[in-house]
């Protein structure tokens, strides 16, 4: 048998059948899912994300507290602030009241 010729023909047959370049469906997505755990963590990105969330929470809390400490519709703004002043300065007032009598 002519082996060199057989070799030549078989190699020509292999050259003729170039393999397909098709990529299986969603291979890129599967590949990236595989790579995702290896992706580097950017500490600045994590920090800024956390900072943004914290800022949003702080603004929400400030609004909530601001609205919750507003006086009811029946009470006037003056009476509330007056009550607050009274409560804050009660001890000072009483001390001032006691000493004023002694002084004067």
């Amino acid at each position, binding site marked *: *048998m*002519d*082996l060199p*010729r*057989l*070799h030549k*023909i*078989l*190699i*020509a*047959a*292999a*050259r*003729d*059948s*170039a*393999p*397909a*370049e*098709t*990529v*299986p469906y969603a*291979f*890129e997505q*599967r*590949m*990236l899912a*595989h*790579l*995702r755990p*290896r*992706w*580097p963590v*950017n500490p600045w990105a994590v920090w800024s994300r956390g900072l943004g969330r914290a800022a949003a929470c702080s603004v929400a809390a400030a609004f909530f507290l601001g609205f919750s400490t507003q006086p009811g519709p029946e009470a006037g703004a003056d009476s509330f602030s007056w009550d607050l002043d009274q409560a804050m300065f009660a001890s000072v007032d009483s001390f001032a009241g006691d000493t004023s009598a002694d002084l004067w």
Partner: protein
Amino acid sequence: MEPTDAELISAVLQGDPAPFEVLVRKYSPRVFATARRYARRESEVEDIAQDVWLKSYQKLSSFRGDAPFEHWLMRLTVRTCYDFLRGHQRNRELAFSEITEPETDWLDRFVTEPEGADHHAAAARQLVGRILEQLSPAARLIITLLEIEERSVKEIAQLTGWSVPLVKVRAFRARAEMKKCLAKLTKDKYL
């Protein structure tokens, strides 16, 4: 305007992995076509491609940018395919008794009329695939690159990382191995 490979790689190296998807989408067809030369089952082909992309991501910092990214990736692909062949070489057993009827018919036609043998026949393609599977990993790689893909010795040396003299020695041995394989096939069948 689409970003160049160098820009994509630089973005990935700076910590933004998203552009790597663009590279995967762009070069996967070449990677799959190369892997299909060495693995028959589609699951094996996909494993090779996955391995290539994992390695390329891990070794991306070693890409110097002197040559196109595609060349660097193809070197990685060929070396991964070679590793695959070496890992699966125990599976290759001489099994010429398993050749199919169309392959036998094609061989019979070749024996009776060598001048009229058709290399376009599907049976010839199957037969050459079967013979390549019998070769050692190095021989198969060399025959594929040198004779089927018609690459130069210098190109093969770059792709495989072997020296030029080593490629020549391995090419000589690969041809001898293939000749031996063909001789065994014909001896088993016709003597």
